[in-house]
């Protein structure tokens, strides 16, 4: 018996300073995907200590600012929203 197994990466869109810090416009997490917004923030702070300067930076899930306890799935459109500077 063949078990088909599709692993879906979690993709994080990076803008502004987040793209500068991470060095790319899409950051991929394959293993140990964070299950909440707060966990993702912790992951980013650990991997990229420069985010500390902008902590607590915002995250958006499906194009809406996300709350810390919000659940994440790899189907969500997830984005890092560093301090904005439009206008």
């Amino acid at each position: 018996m063949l078990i088909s197994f599709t692993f879906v990466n979690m993709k994080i869109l990076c803008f502004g300073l987040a793209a500068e810090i991470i060095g790319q416009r899409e950051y991929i997490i394959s293993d140990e995907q964070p299950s909440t917004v707060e966990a993702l923030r912790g992951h980013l702070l650990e991997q990229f200590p420069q985010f500390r300067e902008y902590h607590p930076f915002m995250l958006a899930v499906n194009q809406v600012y996300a709350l810390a306890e919000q659940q994440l799935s790899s189907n969500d459109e997830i984005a890092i929203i560093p301090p904005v500077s439009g206008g």
Partner: protein
Amino acid sequence: MMKSLSYPLSVVDSQIDIQLKAEPLSVMDCYNFVVDEHCGGIDLFVGTVRRWNKGHEITKLEFESYAPMALSELKKIANHAKAHFEAKKISIHHRIGTVGITEIAVVIAVSCKHRSAAFDTCAYLIDTLKEKVPIWKKEYKVDGSYWVNARP
């Protein structure tokens, strides 16, 4: 970011006109959208690119946006303003991409029955845009280096 250009760049109905544009903005496009025979007061805010910022000479700005979320945040803000300040029509155009000195980064136009509501609405819209809407600017200095503006 070419990718965001595959998203729609505007949200327009009969009373709200929100656009992200890669081409130079037109003050009159915003004015013409909001003018209304029920309204006596129109306020427009135009944000232009200054040559100097905090002692540095700037040669150009570059705006990037998270376009679908920027449009949806602007729509929310405009709807709130219409309800809260009794604004009749609102037009917000924001430039994306490269913008030169004295060029326009943003135009906000608001029409109201009376003038004080127009001023209040317009100030609310630009203040809230600068605080919440996912648009970011890079400022290019004369030596070609750039600085990603981040106002926490």
